[in-house]
C-alpha cells in the first residue's frame, strides 16, 4: 500500500477518512498518535487542509487524495481525476439569509444586485450566473454567518451539514446549491503509471 502517497484532509473529514484507510488496509496508527506530524513515510500518508488536497494531487506530490466535493467545485480547473464518491462527509452548499423577509430577494428586486458573503466565491458566482441573478460576491475567510448579521451582506453561500450553526445565528436556508460528500481523487499521471495499485484501492473502497 505504501507504493501510493495519499493526501488526507485534516478537519471534519479526518476521522472518517482514517477509518476508511484502516478498512482498506492502510495502517493509520502512527497518524492517529501524532497530531503535529504531517508526513508519514511508512503508510504513505500526508495530512493537510482539505483545500490543499487538489493542489498536491494535481502536481503529483500525492498520487491519491481525499477531499470534499465543495473543494473540487471551488477549484474546478484543477486537473485531477475524480474517481469515487466515498459516501461520507455529506453536507449541502446553500444560500441562506436572515430569517423573516428575504432581504437578498428584496435587494435584487429594488437595487438590482444582492451582496453575498462566502468562502466559495467561484461556486457562488457560478450559481448566480446560472440562475440569471446579479450578485456582488464578498469573500470572507472566517465565520460567514456574521456577515449578514452585521449588515455586510444580504445573504451567504456556505456549506452546512446539520444547519445548526445557521439556526443558532438566526439564518434560514433559501436555496440548495449542491450536495457534497467526500471524494477520492487521483493524479492523472499516477492513474496511468500506478494503475494496479490505484485500482486495488478503488476495489477495496467498494467503488467499482
Amino acid at each position, binding site marked *: 500500500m505504501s507504493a501510493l502517497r495519499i493526501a488526507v484532509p485534516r478537519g471534519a473529514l479526518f476521522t472518517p477518512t482514517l477509518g476508511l484507510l484502516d478498512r482498506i488496509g492502510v495502517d493509520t496508527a502512527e497518524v492517529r498518535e501524532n497530531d503535529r506530524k504531517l508526513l508519514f513515510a511508512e503508510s504513505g500518508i500526508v495530512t493537510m487542509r482539505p483545500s490543499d488536497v487538489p493542489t498536491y494531487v*494535481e*502536481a*503529483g*506530490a500525492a498520487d491519491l487524495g481525499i477531499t470534499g466535493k465543495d473543494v473540487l467545485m471551488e477549484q474546478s*480547473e484543477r*486537473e*485531477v*481525476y*475524480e*474517481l*469515487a*464518491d466515498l459516501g461520507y462527509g455529506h453536507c449541502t452548499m446553500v444560500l441562506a439569509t436572515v430569517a423573516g423577509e428575504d432581504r437578498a430577494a428584496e435587494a435584487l428586486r429594488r437595487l438590482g444586485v444582492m451582496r453575498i458573503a462566502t468562502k466559495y466565491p467561484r461556486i457562488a458566482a457560478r450559481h448566480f450566473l446560472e440562475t440569471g441573478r446579479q450578485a456582488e460576491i464578498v469573500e470572507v475567510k472566517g465565520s460567514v454567518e456574521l456577515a449578514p448579521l452585521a449588515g455586510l451582506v444580504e445573504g451567504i453561500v456556505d456549506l452546512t451539514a446539520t444547519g445548526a450553526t445557521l439556526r443558532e445565528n438566526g439564518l434560514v436556508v433559501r436555496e440548495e446549491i449542491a450536495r457534497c460528500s467526500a*471524494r477520492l481523487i487521483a*493524479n*492523472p*499521471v*499516477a*492513474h*496511468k*503509471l500506478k*494503475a*494496479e495499485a490505484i*485500482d486495488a484501492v478503488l476495489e477495496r473502497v467498494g467503488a*467499482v
Partner: protein
Amino acid sequence: MVVDRIPSGTRDVLPDEMRELRAMTNRIRNVFEAAGYGEVYTPALEYENTLARGDLRAARPAYRVFDEHGNVLVLRSDMTVPIARVAATRYSHVAPPLRFSYLAHAYRGVRPQRGQSREFLQAGVELIGAAAPEGTAEALTVLCAALDAAGLETYRVGLGDASLFPGLLEALHVPDTARERILTELVQGDFVGLQREVTALGLAGGDAELLLEVPRLRGGPEVLDALPNPLRNPATGMRAVHALLNPQTAERIIFDLGLVRSLGYYTGAVFQVYDPALGVSIGSGGRYDDLLGRFGRPMPAVGFAVNVERLHIALAGEERGRSG
C-alpha cells in the same frame, strides 16, 4: 529601485538553463533529422481564419492583434495547424509522405495563479500522407527515440483512440445531448459525474457497465482482449500499431482506453507521454486524418509535440531520484 516585471506565465532563460536546454534539444533535433524529418519554422503570427481550420476553442489561442488592414492575426497555439497549412500550400505538388519537424514556441492563454505558460517551447514532428497503422507506428517510434536521446529513462506512452468512446456511445444509441455531457465528464476526468450521467440514461445493465468500465481500462495488451463488439475495430487498430513497433518502443506503450484529448481535430490514435517524475504529461500527439482536407488537400496525418520545459523538469526529477 524600479523592478520591471515580465508577464505571468513567461520567463527569462539564463545561460545555465539555456546550456542544458540546448544540449537536450540538439539531441532531439538529431533524432528528427536522422529519421528524415526536416526542420521547418513558420510565422508565430497567423491569420485567425487559418488557425480556425483547427479547433480554436480547445486550442485556446489567446493573443489577437489587428494588422494595418484590419485582419485578425493570432499567435499560434500549436504547430500542427501551421504545418498542415505549409503541407497543403507549399508542398501541394509533392508526393506524400511529407515529414516535418519543429522546435518552436507556441502561445496559449493561462488561468491565473496556476503556473501555466503563456509561451512554451515544443519539439515535435508531423508525418503527413501516412495512414494508420504504419504512420502511427512511425510517429511513436520517433517519439520514443527522441525521449531516449534526451536521456529520459522511466517514461511511458499512453496509447488510446479518439474515436473509441464516441463510437461506443453511438453503438449504444446514446442521444446526442447526453453524448456531449458524457464526453465532457470524461475529458474532465470526473468518473463520479460519468456514473451520474450514465445512470441517468437508464440503459440496460450490461451497456451502462460498459460505459463506466471502458474509460478505466489501461495497462498492457491484455486490456484489449475480450473487448465487446463495438470496440473491436479501435482495439484491432491499436494492436496493429503495437505489432509494428520495435521491442524497445513497444515496451513503453500503455494501452489507455480512457485517453480522450480535448483537441477536436484528432480522429484516431492519440497518445500522451507520462513520467513518474512529473505530475503532468510531457507531450502528446495523435492522428488528424481530416485536418489536411480542411486546407483542400485531404491526406491522413499524425504528429506529436513534446513540451521541452516539462521534459527538462522531468529529466532533473529522474536525476534527483537516481542520486537520492
